[in-house]
């Protein structure tokens, strides 16, 4: 099946010059194009195909030369050499003979632009790669262009000397590198969900967790049985039951126990009746608006809290916050919560005393009450008097700011 065994005069790699031989490539595809354009192979009778690589990673393979072409094998040295054509006067090097000739004009030297091949009946030349393990080493896969074989050799078997600053990709051929740098970072990636990314890594990470992916795969799984089985791959091994601390709370339960009942992680906005915005940024006084029952133990269910929220009064939210927070709304206040902090203030009316004097040194009874969002009341029980109002703090940002996604 491989009638190319006639390549008996094949060149040795070390030879500088080209050796022509009467080799014929197997005839199936007469058209010869540049090695870089993917040639669609209509009849692949010659079966020297490599095993097809995975999915869409590689292009169709170049190098299907004219069967009548002359096969030339150049040495690595020749292929890697740049500026072979040297001016005898000034020693300037050129990649092509034509360029050298034009340069010679400047020295008033005799010059001649030779027209090559075709007109003179010279056969088309094709080039093989000197690397024995390479696909293009075999004449049936020779490349039709000298520049092409040179670039191929560099790219595939040469040292990658050029590196992209942005993405660290390396290139052996300078022009490849230049072309890449032009477009690197400028290409945008779009996820199925519509979001556009300029950075490939953020795109990939986003894609992996995106809803769009989940949906697409849900369709695929529904469609094909075997995938459903694969989904069962995931197992969860629990060593011992997770730790729960609910029962320990009660005296302390008012603090931090105020998950946000508002389902929308809204921007942080004041209720109309709070006339606070213009006050000193550090000191604010909150109305104790709600009943003590709102500051319940933390293990109140989300549903109940939601119901409470609706009775407590509206918190104005902007629609933009709602839409942009589509992913994130949960009740709860800490740890990845994009919750509405104002709920904390509103329901922290309950002042709980839970400790006596610290270290009992003074002998006075000082009650420290700790409530709500780090609000701290210090009330001296002694008759010397009290601070008029429990000072709770809440740093309200100026009313013009809103909390939302950045």
């Amino acid at each position, binding site marked *: 099946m491989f009638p190319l065994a006639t390549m008996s005069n094949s060149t040795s790699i070390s030879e500088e010059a080209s050796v022509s031989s009467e080799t014929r490539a197997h005839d199936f595809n007469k058209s010869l194009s540049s090695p870089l354009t993917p040639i669609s192979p209509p009849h692949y009778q010659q079966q020297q195909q490599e095993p097809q*690589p*995975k999915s869409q*990673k590689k292009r169709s393979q170049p190098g299907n030369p004219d069967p009548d072409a002359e096969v030339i094998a150049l040495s690595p040295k020749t292929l890697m050499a740049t500026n072979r054509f040297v001016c005898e006067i000034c020693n300037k090097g050129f990649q092509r003979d034509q360029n050298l000739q034009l340069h010679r004009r400047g020295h008033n030297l005799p010059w001649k632009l030779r027209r090559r091949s075709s007109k003179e009946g010279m056969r088309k030349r094709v080039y093989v790669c000197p690397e024995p393990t390479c696909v293009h080493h075999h004449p049936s896969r020779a490349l039709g262009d000298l520049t092409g074989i040179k670039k191929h050799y560099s790219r595939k078997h040469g040292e990658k000397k050029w590196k992209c600053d942005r*993405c660290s990709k390396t290139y052996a051929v300078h022009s490849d590198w230049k072309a890449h740098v032009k477009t690197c970072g400028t290409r945008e990636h779009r996820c199925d969900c519509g979001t556009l990314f300029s*950075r490939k*890594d953020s795109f*990939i*990470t*986003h894609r*992996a*967790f995106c809803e769009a992916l*989940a949906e697409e*795969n849900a369709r695929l799984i529904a469609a094909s049985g075997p995938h459903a089985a*694969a*989904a069962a791959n*995931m*197992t*969860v091994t629990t*060593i*011992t039951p*997770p*730790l729960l601390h609910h029962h*320990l709370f009660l005296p*302390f339960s008012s603090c*931090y*126990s105020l*998950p946000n009942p508002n389902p929308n992680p809204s921007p942080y906005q004041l209720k109309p009746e709070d006339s606070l915005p213009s006050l000193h940024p*550090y000191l604010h006084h909150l109305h104790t608006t709600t009943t003590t029952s709102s500051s319940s133990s*933390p293990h109140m269910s989300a549903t109940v809290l939601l119901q409470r929220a609706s009775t407590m009064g509206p918190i104005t939210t902007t629609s933009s916050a709602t839409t942009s927070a589509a*992913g*994130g*709304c*949960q009740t*709860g206040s*800490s*740890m*990845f919560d*994009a919750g509405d*902090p104002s709920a904390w203030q509103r329901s922290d009316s309950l002042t709980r005393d*839970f*400790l006596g004097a*610290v270290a009992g*040194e003074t002998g*006075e009874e000082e009650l*420290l009450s*700790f409530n709500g*969002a*780090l609000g701290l009341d*210090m009330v*001296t029980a002694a008759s*010397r008097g009290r601070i008029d109002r429990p000072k709770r*703090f*809440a*740093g*309200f*940002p100026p009313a013009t*700011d809103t*909390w939302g*996604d*950045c």
Partner: protein
Amino acid sequence: MIVKKASEIPNQHHHHHMSTSRQSEPDDPSASEKWAANLLQDCAKAISEKDSSKIHHLLWMLNELASPYGDCEQKLASYFLQALFCKATESGERCYKTLVSVAEKSHSFESARKVILKFQEVSPWTTFGHVASNGAILEALEGEAKLHIIDISNTYCTQWPTLLEALATRSDETPHLRLTVVATVGMGGGSVMKEIGQRMEKFARLMGVPFEFHVVRVASQLGELKEEDLGLREDEAVAVNCVGALRRVAVEERGDFMRLLCSLRPRVVTVVEEEADFTSTGSEYVRCFEECLRFYGVFFEMLEESFAPTSNERLSLERECSRSILSVLACDGDGVGDCERREKGSQWFARLMQAFSPMNFSDDVVDDVRALLKRYRSGWSLLPAQGDDSGLYLTWKDEPVVWASAWKP
């Protein structure tokens, strides 16, 4: 500060007392730039000296000035105040448990994903470690057909999509990847990891990488992890990935933990930790406090400059910090969930040397990290470890903040 009697009522009058005795403090203590540090440290000192009246006074002042919604100073004041208060009232453990419980309730896949992806978009704090670790892992496992990565991290598997993509595209023979995630209490309930697992599987399918995902739950302390829990197989090449993991092991168990990792016979161990020392200060409260304040001061400032001013994601991250701060400064450490006692790179280096030998990151990996940092705002830079330790430091305004290293048996 001169407080004659504990019974004196803190009021305006008192401020004057304060201001004359302080160094150069104006009447309004909040006017000086880094006012929070001064007040907080004074309070920490008062607590360690058990100066009750001073404690009360400072706590009161801090409460007046602090706010979790204000500027950096106010935020630090707020969260550290909470820790100081709990320390003073010996209620740290209770408070911590409350925070944990509330967190668990509100914690969902959606919210976690949102916060961490946004964080990674605006700051290389976590992605630095990811890129370095992935690079080391890929190089160490090059050519292997079956890979098993044991992931003990706090970044919710956001490290793995890019690794999966690299596996899919860079080699001709895509290896089979098994990913075992070790989850502790702090990582939310089972539903979060389950959802993450499903996404990972789907993504791997999309990438064309044969993939298996398992979650191993540790009940209380990371130190309890055992080799048999991990289900290792004979024919696979193991990599252990520890991002923000070692610090969650109780201090006295860290040596054993290294030995455990060694017993897994990994080809490579990648370690990423934040650059702070909350361990060697031991029982010296004030020194530990200072270091804590220093580190979180940098972290909060970095958050402030990276996110937009009114970001909910940043707020979530700050609240998460408040738990760590509480854990370090107000809890004794027994049975309070994840330990948070960080150590610096050089300290971890010394520990890891007992069980492993250091592996340098290759030039390609370092280049990748550099390219990564370029994609973020200015202020970030890369610092290779010098002297006794190995690895890479991420620096924020020339201050090392995260350490990444790789190890082999």
